[in-house]
């Protein structure tokens, strides 16, 4: 009988414990970020690649042949300022139409948040050379002579140069580095956090994020592909311009 009582108490404890867990689960939901791409008002998919379709603000007629970029560390800010970090990264590959949406394994509590954001690229502490096997497997690495780690973005294509000839460009964003070699230096951070604004999460939610590709060439620097086209990874000046132009590239398209 004594054992029976002990078992009963234990069962009640477990039962109430489980109920409590269930309550937490009910209020935790998945958040998905879905990425779409635009050149001004036109949506861009890989079916639009490989033709000189686009004109940047400097007047360069250009095509896109390859576009992939990395986002990481989605973060929600509560109205009291507390932040919730959803660890993880996602390599958006527009060329192959893969990873266009990303659902972190961590869930988030329903409620109102004053901001949702993500990092374009990796913060320096997580930009660890060779650390991520999936990124190594798709050759996303940055040479160690430039500090190692990973690309933030590869945007490749062709443009009509000042001689009216088709020429390649490689708009590759990485951590800006000077003095390439065994001991590179880093003039400034070139990853950046993209703030998307306030959001209310009531259930599983998909946040559609738009990348406006034309912004990479637009503001504040009117990008002239005749000046900056290839071999931009070791060019810290170009990297900082990419960082500056990147500030206005992303916005929320819609929330479902």
């Amino acid at each position, binding site marked *: 009988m004594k054992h029976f009582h002990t078992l009963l108490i234990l069962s009640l404890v477990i039962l109430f414990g489980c109920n409590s867990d269930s309550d937490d689960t009910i209020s935790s939901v998945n958040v998905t970020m879905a990425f779409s791409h635009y050149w001004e008002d036109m949506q861009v998919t890989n079916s639009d690649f490989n033709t000189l379709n686009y004109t940047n603000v400097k007047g360069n007629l250009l095509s896109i042949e390859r576009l992939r970029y990395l986002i990481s560390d989605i973060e929600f800010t509560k109205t009291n300022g507390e932040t919730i970090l959803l660890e993880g990264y996602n390599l958006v590959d527009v060329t192959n139409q893969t990873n266009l949406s990303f659902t972190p394994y961590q869930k988030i509590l329903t409620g109102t948040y004053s901001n949702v954001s993500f990092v374009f690229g990796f913060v320096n502490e997580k930009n660890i050379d060779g650390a991520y096997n999936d990124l*190594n497997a798709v050759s996303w690495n940055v040479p160690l*002579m430039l500090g190692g780690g990973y690309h933030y973005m590869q945007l490749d294509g062709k443009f009509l140069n000042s001689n009216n000839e088709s020429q390649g460009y490689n708009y590759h964003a990485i951590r800006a580095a000077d003095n390439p070699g065994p001991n590179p230096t880093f003039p400034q951070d070139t990853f950046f956090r993209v703030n998307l604004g306030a959001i209310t999460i009531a259930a599983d939610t998909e946040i559609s994020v738009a990348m406006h590709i034309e912004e990479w060439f637009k503001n504040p620097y009117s990008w002239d592909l005749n000046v900056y086209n*290839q071999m*931009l990874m070791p060019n810290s000046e170009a990297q900082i311009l990419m960082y500056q132009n990147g500030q206005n590239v992303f916005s929320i398209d819609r929330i479902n």
Partner: protein
Amino acid sequence: MTFKRFSFLVTVFALGTASCNNESAESYINTPTPSPLQIPKLFQDLILDPVIPSNNPQTEEGISLGKKLFFDPILSANNTLACASCHKTPNAFTDDTRFSDGIDGLFGNRNSMPLFNLAWNYDNKFFWDGRDFGLENQVFEPITNPIEMHSTWEAVTDKLQKHPEYPELFNAAFGTRTIDSVLVSKAIAQFERTLISANSKFDKFLLGTATLTPEETNGFNIFMDESKGDCFHCHGSDNNPLWTDNKFHNNGLDTTFSDLGLGNVTGDPADNGKFKTPSLRNLAFTAPYMHDGRFETIEDVINHYSEGLQNSETIDPLMKKVDQRGVQLSSQEKADLKAFLLSLSDPDFIKNPDFSNL
């Protein structure tokens, strides 16, 4: 519980166990022995797991059968040509001639691809133009190709079925003596997945057991420098031991294309002239180079990227300084780059008795 009841339970249990043992013994006869791939440390540490189809796991019997088939000319119409005839072990499983000679004396227009580390081809697209999805599917083509083995699956399976050894070997590998094309392709694919090359000097350097010469070190730096060789965007780096992205690029060989490559598969003109990036492993053994074997030496290849690029509509934008026809390396830089590239060759791979018919 009474003793009588206990005895009854023991008897039932014993009968059940005996019956289970019988079933195990019977099924064991035709159950091949699992033989998972031995994944090299660098691969384990740096990249994703290999791609093994769930319906064709690696087994000792399957690999052994695949090896026998790979080296056996029985697969060709006149019993003169084996897979290994054009994919030769001493050449890291490519041919040492530009084009390979089929059973009727006909030649194709592509250099036979080297075979190694195939299980890490994550996109699973095979051949220079990526036309076959999956290693098993790739196996199907050479056997019936008129300029290669020029046989039929009916003839091949008939010969194998009447062979004194093969039916039993298929039974051991797949649990059936009835041979068909699917089982042939599965066995050969299992063997091909074991062709792992991961013991070059550069591998040893990364593992801390070898030292690079100054020339090799400088060559690696040229390889990794976007302003110099910029080889790493397509061929990977010290963080990707495959030394290929397994993607398709137009690397500036021609201004017009007699062979459309990937474009012939997709029908998209934007893919014309694109071919799969080959791995840079084992270049010491795999000459001639490029999809059509046009370059006889590594020097020829380096000269192409340095001052031989041909512009075209589909040339990859990663090709640098096309207006100067290449990246303009100095003689010393070329020599150093070659020294580094040769450090990616793996003599143990071509000497591995598991990969030889001797």
